[in-house]
């Protein structure tokens, strides 16, 4: 991956070649009302089983492929079964906290969605996502803030690597030079060490870091308690989303936030209505619901987009788990989402309809979904260019 910072190190000629003029300023209208649009990307790391998350109970091949792990179809009075969405698809019962958002049409699903990658590799699949959020952050027509792109976690995810100067942090509280009396002197000293001089990854990151530290201090974001009675699960995802909400409410200029939740690589003992995957989904659903409740009216400016590397095999494997597959389901929650609908063409689970005879086929290239979100929600003019070598696809209409 070649970043602008890497090029800067390489020399001025290289820089001239990539320093594109700000073509997107014409569409700065989105920022005119002073409230920024925010995209929150939640990555389900390890490849979530879309067929258990959003259950195609109306597909007659579903239950047969999964003797031990199929989710019971919706039935009146059966609270432990899938929650019906549209007569064909249902929500995993552990996602019950999301039902109100479906009913109020703030939640949409895109099914049979996935990467054009063929390898079923966790790591290769992410190549197609490399840097797109970073590129999106750079092209959003809004004034720059050090908190424009933020990842919650102690490493910067690949989707945010690049030259957008994305910030990563594990905790707002700890985001400073801390310690005893010497902290103030040290902070100043460190800041000057990274202030000038060489244009490389380290110095660039250092400069952005101290800008962000100052801004965060004055905004006092970490003091904001969850609003509207929201209760986040005490998990890593809950903590991350709670802090993303703090950044949004503190108006530090956040546009793109990223967080991830792991534990989705369920090769063994995946479980059905209860069990391993259900526990992960319970946390996932509760965290998303708390986030939306916490932000209340501010959700009109926010879209949460969930994503994963790929889906899992249609048939369960020999250990009541699932192996690496192809398409999965992705969720959108927030303002401007035309919710209450499952988007995407359903390819079917009959064996002859499966990709290589084993996986749910991809009918929506996830780049088409990501581009639509970038274009409609973040007002990026040519969102297909966020994905090098891709000429674009047709919009699903999932955002108004």
């Amino acid at each position, binding site marked *: 991956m070649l970043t602008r910072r890497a090029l800067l190190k390489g020399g001025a000629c290289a820089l001239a070649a990539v320093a594109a003029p700000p073509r997107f300023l014409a569409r700065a209208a989105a920022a005119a009302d002073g409230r920024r649009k925010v995209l929150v990307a939640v990555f389900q790391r390890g490849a979530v089983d879309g067929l258990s998350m959003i259950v195609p109970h109306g597909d007659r091949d579903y239950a047969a492929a999964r003797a031990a792990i199929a989710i019971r179809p919706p039935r009146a009075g059966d609270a432990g079964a899938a929650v019906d969405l549209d007569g064909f698809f249902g929500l995993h019962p552990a996602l019950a906290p999301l039902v109100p958002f479906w009913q109020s049409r703030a939640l949409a699903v895109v099914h049979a969605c996935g990467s054009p990658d063929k390898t079923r*590799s966790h790591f290769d699949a992410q190549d197609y996502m490399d840097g797109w959020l970073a590129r999106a952050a750079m092209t959003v027509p809004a004034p720059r803030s050090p908190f424009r792109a933020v990842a919650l976690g102690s490493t910067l995810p690949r989707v945010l690597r690049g030259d957008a100067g994305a910030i990563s942090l594990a905790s707002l509280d700890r985001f400073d030079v801390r310690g005893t009396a010497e902290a103030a002197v040290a902070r100043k000293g460190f800041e000057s060490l990274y202030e000038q001089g060489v244009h490389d990854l380290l110095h660039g990151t250092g400069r952005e870091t101290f800008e962000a530290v100052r801004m965060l201090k004055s905004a006092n974001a970490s003091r904001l308690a969850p609003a509207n009675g929201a209760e986040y699960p005490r998990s890593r995802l809950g903590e991350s989303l709670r802090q993303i909400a703090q950044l949004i409410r503190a108006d530090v200029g956040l546009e793109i936030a990223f967080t991830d939740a792991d534990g989705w690589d369920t090769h063994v003992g995946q479980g059905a209505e209860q069990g391993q995957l259900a526990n992960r989904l319970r946390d996932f659903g509760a965290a998303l619901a708390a986030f939306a409740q916490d932000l209340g009216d501010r959700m009109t400016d926010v879209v949460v987009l969930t994503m994963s590397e790929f889906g899992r095999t249609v048939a369960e494997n020999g*250990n009541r788990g699932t*192996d690496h597959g192809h398409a999965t389901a992705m969720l959108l929650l927030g303002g401007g989402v035309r919710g209450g609908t499952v988007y995407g063409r359903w390819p079917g689970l009959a064996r002859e309809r499966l990709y290589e005879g084993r996986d749910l086929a991809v009918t929506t290239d996830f780049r088409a979904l990501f581009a639509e979100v970038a274009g409609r929600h973040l007002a990026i003019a040519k969102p297909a260019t966020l994905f090098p070598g891709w000429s674009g696809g047709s919009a699903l209409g999932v955002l108004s």
Partner: protein
Amino acid sequence: MTHRLAAAAVLVATCLAASLAPRAQATGPVPAADDAAIVHALSRLGFGPRPGDVERVKAIGLAAWIEGQLEPRRLDDRAAAQALAALPTLTMSTAELHREYPRPDLRQKSADPQMAPRELFNRPPPEKRPVRIVAEMQAARMVRAIESERQLEEVMVDFWFNHFNVHAAKGEVKWYLTSYERDVIRPHALGTFGDLLRGTATHPAMLFYLDNWLSTRPNFTVPFGANRGKRAGLNENYARELMELHTLGVDGGYTQTDVTEVARAFTGWTIERPRDDARFVFRPRMHDRGEKTVLGTRLTSGGGQDDGERVLSLLVHHPATARFVATKLVRRFVVDEPPPALVERVAATFRGTDGDVRAMLRTIVAAPEFWAADARGAKIKKPFEYVASAVRAMGGHVDARAGFFLARAAAEMGEGLYGAQPPTGYPDRAEAWVNAGALLARMNFALALTQRRLPGVTLDLSPLAADAAAPDAALDRLLAALLHGEAGAQTRAVLTAQLTNPEIRRQTPDDRGPANTDVAKLAALVIGSPEFQRR
């Protein structure tokens, strides 16, 4: 290879580099075994220089030092062994670990239904909880990186552990972890790739982590255990990562059919008495006896355990494996974007020596690319490397207790040892580690270390403070000791300006120096500086 030959290799490298000088004009040709070359070697083949190391290497000769590192068993390592003696789990067998650090009996839960599994795990005193096993392993890694004379071996243990990663927090792995590193990774860290591959393939830690212990022929009925009477079948988790991450690499030319066929070949490779001594066993009844075709090679039916052995052999000898392993080694020792020519030479060594790790390392240290000016300082230290190198640079010594705190510091920077969940292990590229939160964590560590807030770390600042009465001399000494002439103009200017800062120019003398420059505070800035993040 004799010492003389090794010396010749370095000389050859030096001459080659000199002949390439026009392409690396900025700093001119690589000088033969000068201080900078020694610092480079200590930083790449180990966890960075301690005070006096450059002189010590100079005394025995750089080539001889490298050769010594390639034969770690011959190096006296008493200091490290002494510190490690306080960590009893390191020498325990898997059976002993199960006995001494038993898994809480989840059935007790019924007595108190309110109690969460986590609480159950936290009921024994900290030194008796199963997580203690992992904590001691983390501490040991830190202690060894700092105190061990066998620096290259420690680098390779870290490298191979990441290559053959297992995640300590997954199920039974924590009880297997000690043996996995001690009995498979460490003994073969400078051995052959085939031994590492076979060792990991048959170790309970890997069998459990990538689920192969449960993978069976279709419609196998589990005869005992928790799943007694249930049907079991194929699980392709290990088969895929074996090819994608351990051997061929994702572009190594295998297909989904190969994944399934390899998974079939490994059915029956499982764990005997998983909650006791946990030994590898091949169970013929779990094995899929049918014919398989792997990467175009037919394995006739009825091969039994030999199916898996043959797959491992095919993979070890596949040219894609040589290239994949060579690429990762060059990335670790030279630069993030490995030069293809050097990768090819290292891959050729792999092919020519049947995956001899020492031979590949010799190819790397004999390469002009290794010594090239643009390779020096080109790598960003991973958190583990950063923490260890900082303590070493400050002349610090650590006991086992320090190991726990230092491991926690590395975790704050994003590298919790044995804590990488995905089978890739931790990345070895700058972009993964350079980010705002992690950079602040590094600066905070630099402060904690130099202000002596880390229990168990002993720092003797007196050699650094010797010139503290003359601020400029103190700074020069500090930069020489910690950055070895690599301080950039910006860093020097900022630190010079600090010399007049009243916080640094203290009035009261103490053990940080007889007079008025607080060397500890200056050192914090140097350890947190951009230059010290590089190796």
